[in-house]
Each structure stands twice: as structure tokens, then as C-alpha cells.
């Protein structure tokens, strides 16, 4: 079977694709969900980043989104298997409502991640790989360079808008 560092790296890529796809589908880079998210986006733009990327970073900070869903689903599957992941989805749903977020990105991300992580555990991965993988995945967006991360998200948002034209960037 694969070594642990390689498994964590593959898990990080899977987690990154999962949360980014769902966040883009749920239009997180379109606008700030709360005033704090908008303020973070404006600061990112002032620092040389892109506004749409800033909105997504602000929304991730302000409410549990698909990235949080992926992390908690991994924790759920690690601690209690498939039911644990689905229980985590319920907790993410409650967390969204506590944070005054009307969206379903977190809950959807948590449910998809539960099945991805559970499926991966059947083919030789361990759920802990996905916990570390998700922490690495969020580090690439939130923790290295807000300028480059926001530009990357803005570019992906433009690609997403090309497929669904009513959502202008």
C-alpha cells in the first residue's frame, strides 16, 4: 500500500478539489455573506488581491463552508465511520445557522466528503490522511499568500461564470 506522506498528499488534492468545486457551485466568490466577509474582501483587494477571491476567503472565515464540511466529515469518519460523517453534516448545518449563513455549501460539502472519505478508506486510505490533507488544502488558500490565492479563486470563478453566464464576476 502507499506510504502515509503520499496518501496525505493525494488526500489533500482530493479535499482541495471537493471544497473548491462546491464553493464555486454555491457562489461563495460572488459576494460577502455577512458584513465581515465583505470587509475582509475589501482589505484583500487593497493589498493587491482580487475582490472575488477575497469574498470567498471572507466567507470561509465567517461561516463553516465546504472546506469546514470536508474537515468535519473526515473527523466524523475517523471517529465513527459513515454515521459519524453524516452526524458531522448535521453539526455543520447547525453551525451554518448559528453563523447567520442561509447557504447549504457546508452541509453539501460535508455529505459529499463523507462518501469520498468513506470510499477512500475502503481502498487503503485512512481517514486521518484526509484530516491532514484538508488542513494542507486550506493552508494553500488561506495561509500562504492572500494575493495569489485570491487571484487563483477569481480566475476559477471566471471559468465557473463562463459555464453559468447569469453570475457575472
Amino acid at each position, binding site marked *: 500500500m502507499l506510504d502515509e506522506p503520499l496518501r496525505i498528499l493525494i488526500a489533500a488534492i482530493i479535499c482541495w478539489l471537493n471544497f473548491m468545486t462546491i464553493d464555486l457551485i454555491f457562489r461563495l466568490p460572488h459576494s460577502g455573506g455577512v458584513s465581515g*466577509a465583505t470587509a475582509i474582501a475589501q482589505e484583500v483587494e487593497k493589498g493587491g488581491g482580487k475582490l472575488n477571491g477575497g469574498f470567498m476567503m471572507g466567507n470561509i472565515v465567517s461561516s463553516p463552508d465546504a472546506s469546514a464540511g470536508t474537515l468535519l466529515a473526515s473527523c466524523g469518519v475517523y471517529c465513527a465511520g459513515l454515521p459519524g460523517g453524516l452526524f458531522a453534516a448535521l453539526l455543520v448545518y447547525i453551525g451554518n445557522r448559528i453563523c447567520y449563513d442561509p447557504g447549504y455549501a457546508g452541509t453539501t460539502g460535508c455529505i459529499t466528503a463523507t462518501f469520498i472519505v468513506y470510499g477512500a478508506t475502503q481502498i487503503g486510505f485512512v481517514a486521518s490522511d484526509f484530516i491532514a490533507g484538508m488542513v494542507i488544502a486550506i493552508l494553500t488558500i488561506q495561509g500562504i499568500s492572500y494575493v495569489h490565492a485570491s487571484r487563483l479563486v477569481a480566475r476559477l470563478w471566471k471559468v465557473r461564470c463562463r459555464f453559468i453566464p447569469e453570475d457575472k464576476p
Partner: protein
Amino acid sequence: MIAIYICAGIAVYAAIRIIAEHNTMRKLPFLNVVSFAVTGIIALLMPHPITIAAAAAYFVGSTLESNAIASTWSGGIKKDG
């Protein structure tokens, strides 16, 4: 076992970035990374079903705090009319 060291290393790295960053709003994404890493560490240290509730409570609580800091810093709730 490497997973927990990766989470701990990233948490320390993000904490250093928080201290180094001077703009309060731009500190918050790094704080978010710390929350992710600590949530992961909680789950990895205690693999028990009730840990899911503890990890989710910690994560939602820290997100709510970040939300409150950002919203307060940006001028609080904007009332219509």
C-alpha cells in the same frame, strides 16, 4: 501518525503568520487555518464518537468569533432605513 505532526506544524506556522501580519482583517484567514489545524488535532488525539461534537463545537465557535470580530471591525450590523 505523521498527520498529527502536519496539523501541529501548520497550526504553529499560521500562528506565527498571525503575529507577523499587522492588518487585523488580514489576520483572520490565518486564524481560520489555526482553527482547522486545531480541530484536526482534537479529532486525531481522541478517536471517540463524542469527539465529533467537540471538534464541531470548537470549529463553529471559533468561526463565530472570527465572524463577530470581522463584522464588528467593519462597523457592525447595517440597519435598513
